[in-house]
C-alpha cells in the first residue's frame, strides 16, 4: 500500500476554519489525511503542542490563520509566524525537515485555496515519506519549545526589532536571527544532554560519543547546566553526570 501521511491541522476559527467550511459548502474535494483542531486564533498554537504532534506520530503539521492584517485578534497571526519560525529552527536541529510544519494564511472566502493548500501539503508530506526521526531528538526538540530563553526571545522579537535593546537601539532583523539561531543551537545541545542523562548517567566523553558532538562543546554546556543546577557530578572515575531533581 502506498504511504498515506498523518497530518494534524490547527485552524483559526475566524478565517482558516471558515475557509475549510467554505470548501465543504462548495463541495470542493481534497485529500482526507488532515485532522483539524479548531483554535480561536493561530496565535494560540503553542510550538510545544506542535512538537507533541510530531512526537505522537504526525508526519506533518499544518497551522493556518488569517492573512496578515486580517487576524480577528489584531496580530495573532503575526505571533504565530514568529513562533513557527523559531519552531522551524528547532525542527531542523532535531533533523526533522522544516517543511513538515506548514504555515499558511487562508481567509474565510478562500474555499478553493483551502483545498489547494491541503492537497499540496499532503502531497509534499507524502513525498517526504513517514517521519522517521530519532525519538530522543524529538523529545529534546519538544523540551526546547518550552525553553525560557527561546520563548523570551520570540516573545520580545517585535519589541527588539522596533523599539530596541536596553540602549534604545533597534536590533536588526539579521542580528536577531543570528541571536535566535545561537540560542536555539545551544539550547538544543543542552536539552539533548538532559534527555540522554535522564535515561542514565554518563561521562562527558560518553555524552560526546552518544550525541556525536566534540567533547569540549559537551563540557562547555555541562558547565552551564551545572550552574543552572540542572545536572550534578557523581564522584568517581571517570566523573559522571546525573540529572538533578528539581
Amino acid at each position, binding site marked *: 500500500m502506498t504511504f498515506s501521511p498523518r497530518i494534524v491541522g490547527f485552524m483559526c476559527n475566524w478565517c482558516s476554519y471558515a475557509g475549510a467550511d467554505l470548501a*465543504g*459548502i462548495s463541495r470542493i474535494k481534497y485529500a482526507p489525511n488532515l485532522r483539524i483542531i479548531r483554535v480561536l486564533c493561530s496565535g494560540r498554537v503553542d510550538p510545544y503542542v506542535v512538537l507533541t504532534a510530531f512526537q505522537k506520530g504526525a508526519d506533518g503539521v499544518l497551522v493556518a490563520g488569517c492573512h496578515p492584517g486580517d487576524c*480577528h485578534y489584531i496580530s495573532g497571526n503575526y505571533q504565530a509566524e514568529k513562533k513557527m519560525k523559531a519552531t522551524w529552527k528547532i525542527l531542523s536541529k532535531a533533523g526533522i525537515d522544516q517543511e513538515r510544519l506548514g504555515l499558511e494564511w487562508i481567509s474565510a472566502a478562500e474555499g478553493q485555496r483551502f483545498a489547494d493548500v491541503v492537497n499540496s501539503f499532503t502531497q509534499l508530506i507524502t513525498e517526504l515519506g513517514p517521519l522517521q526521526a530519532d525519538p530522543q531528538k524529538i523529545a529534546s526538540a519538544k523540551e526546547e519549545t518550552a525553553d525560557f530563553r527561546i520563548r523570551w526571545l520570540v516573545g520580545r522579537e517585535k519589541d527588539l526589532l522596533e523599539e530596541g535593546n536596553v540602549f534604545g537601539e533597534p536590533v536588526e532583523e539579521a542580528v536577531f536571527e543570528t541571536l535566535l539561531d545561537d540560542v536555539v543551537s545551544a539550547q538544543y545541545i543542552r536539552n539533548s544532554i538532559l534527555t540522554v542523562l535522564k535515561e542514565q548517567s554518563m561521562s562527558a566523553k560518553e555524552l560526546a560519543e552518544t550525541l556525536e558532538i566534540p567533547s569540549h562543546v559537551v563540557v562547555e554546556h555541562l558547565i552551564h547546566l551545572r550552574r543552572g543546577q540542572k545536572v550534578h557530578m557523581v564522584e568517581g572515575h571517570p566523573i559522571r553526570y546525573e540529572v538533578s531533581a528539581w
Partner: protein
Amino acid sequence: MSKSEPRIGVYVCHCGLNIGAVVDVAAVAQYAQTLPGVVVSRESTYTCSDNGQRSIQEDIENHNLSRVVVASCSPRMHGDTFMKTCETAGLNPYLFEMVNIREQCSWVHTDKEQATEKAKDLVRMAVAKVRLLEPLEKQKSAVNKAALVIGGGVAGIFSALYLANAGIKTYVVEKKPSIGGHMAQLDKTFPTLDCSLCILSPRMADIGKHENIELITYADIENISGYAGNFQVTVKSNPRYVIKENCRLCGVCAEKCPISLPDEFNMGLKKRKAVYIPFPQAVPNYYLIDAGHCLHITKGGCMLCQKNCPNDAIDFEETEAVRELNVGAIIVATGFELYDATQKKEYGYGRYPNVITNMDFERWVSADGPTHGKVVRPSDGAPPQRIGFIQCVGSRDEKEGAVYCSRICCMATVKQATMLREKYPSAEIYVYYTDMRTPGKGFEEFYQRGREHGIVFIRGKPGEIEEDDNHNLLIVSEDTDSGLILRNTLDLVVLACGLRPPEALEELAQKLHLSRSPDGFIMEAHPKLRPAETSISGVFLTGCVQFPKDIPDTVAQSGGAAAMAAALLTKDEIELEPVRAAVDEELCIGCGLCEENCDYGAIEVKKTEEGMKAQVIEVACQGCGVCAASCPQKAVTVRHFTDGQLLAQVTAALEPEVIV
C-alpha cells in the same frame, strides 16, 4: 478535570443524505460507543430538528449525561443551537463539543471508507477533549449608558446627534478649537452645489446646545482603558484663556493684538491674530488665545487684549483641565488629512505661487475667503483665463505611498471646474485625469454637464510643471487617448490632492487597540458586513477615518455607527464570553511575556504578596490564546482551549488506543 468519570452522550447525524451518503453513520455511532466515558451513542436523521434536540435533552435527564458530543455540521453553523439545547436541559453549555463531519468530511471526500475512518477519528478527538472540558459561566457586566465621539467633523457631528436624539448622553471630543472639520472649510458641495456651511452650521449649533451632548473642544484623548460597556477615558483640554460666558465676540482683543499669523482655517491665505476665533460660525463660538504665539504667554508683558477687552473675558490664569469620562461605547470619527502637496516636488507647490491645492481653491472661492470669493492668480491678483486641474495628486501613486483612490477628488474637481465656469464663462479649463470616477447618485450626470459646458478632460497625468518669469505655468502631458503630446501654458493650476489618514491616528489607534489597514486608515471589523464596527467590541467607526468618502456616505455611516452604539448602550448589562485566559499564579514567574504579547492589554503583571504575577483583566480578554502560547511556564491558559485539551486532541488524532 472533573473528579468523577464523565458520562458522555454522542450523537452522530445523517443530515439527511448530506452526511449519510458518504459516511457510514451507524458505524461511527457504534465506534463511539466503545470510547471511554461514552454512555449513550445514537444516530439521528437531523440532530438539529426539534426531535433530534429533544432526544439529547431526554438523555441528559434520563442518563444523567455530563458531556455531549454532536457529530454533524460546522460548529460555526449550529454550535450555538446545541449549546442552548444543553443549557435548556440543565447542562452547562460549555460541556459540549461539536464534530464537523459534514463541511470537513462528507462534503469534501468521496471514498466512503476513508471518510468514515476520518469521521471516527474526529469523534474520538472530540470525546478526548470533551472529557476535559470544564463548566464556564457567562459573566455579566453593567453598561455605562454614555457614549464618546472622538472627532467633531461631519461624521462626529451626525453620530453624536443621532445618539443624543435617542436620549443617550454623548461626549464629543474635538482636537481643534471648533468642531466642523473639513466640511466647514468647503464652499459648496457636489453634485448639488449646496452651500457647505449653510447645511452644516445649524447642526454644529445643535451640538453646542443639545441637552444630551457635552462638547469638549481643543482637547486630546490622553488615555483609554476598559472594555465594551465600561470604558474610562482621560481627556485633557487646553486652556483658551478666554472666559466663554464673558466673551461677546466684539473682536476688540484681536484688533489690538500685535501678533499676526497664518489663518489655518483659510489654508494660510489670510492672517489671524494670536487671539482669534477660528471662523465666524465656530462652535463653541468664542475667542481663544494661541498660547504658542501669544506675546504675553511666550515672553511676558503685552496683555493688550486683556487691557482692552470691555467684558473682562481674558483670563491668563486658566490652566489645562484633565477629565475622566466613563462611557459604554466609543465612536471614532477623526477624519482625514489632506495630502501634503509640497511632497510632490515636480508640481512646484509652495515654490510656484500659481499652483494651489483643491482645499486652497475651496477657500479662494468662498465668500469668507481671502478675496471674498474671487478666484485670482495668487502671484498678481489677475483673474485666471487658462486653468488646469491635475488629478490623483498623492493618490493612486505608489511612489507617494498611497496606491488607493481617494474617491472624492474627481467629483471635487468637477465641482470646482463647474464653479469656475460660472465665474469665468470664457476661461479655458483643463482637467488632467487618470480615470474619471463618478460612482454616486447624480455624479455622472454632474460630470457630463461639466463636459457640455466646455470643460476639457485630458487623460494623462503631467510629469512636471515649469514656471516662466511671469509665473505662468507650463505643462507638458501626453494625451493617452490620442497619443499626442500636449503643451499648455496656464495661469493657474489646482492640484486635486488625495486624502490621507491623520498623522496622529497611529497614536489613537494604539490607545484603542485598533488595527489599521495597509492604507493607514482604521480597519473595519468586516469589509462588507461590519463597515462601522472595529475589531474591538464597543468601539465603532465612521467617516474618512475608515476610508476616504464623501459627505453623504459619511452621514450614512454615522447613522450606522450610532445605531450600533445605541444597541449596546440601551442594554443594562452585557454578557461576556467566558472563553478567556486564566493564570495559575503558582506557576507564574512574572516574566511579562504574556502582557507584552497581548494585543488587548488584557493581562498585566502586578505586584502580589507572592511577587510579580500575571493577572487577567477578564472583561478585556478576547480569548485568542496568544498569551498561553507565549508563556514559558505554562502558567497561563485559555479556558475551553487549554493545553491539556489541545494535547488530548492531538493524542487522540494520532494514538487511537490512548484516551486520556
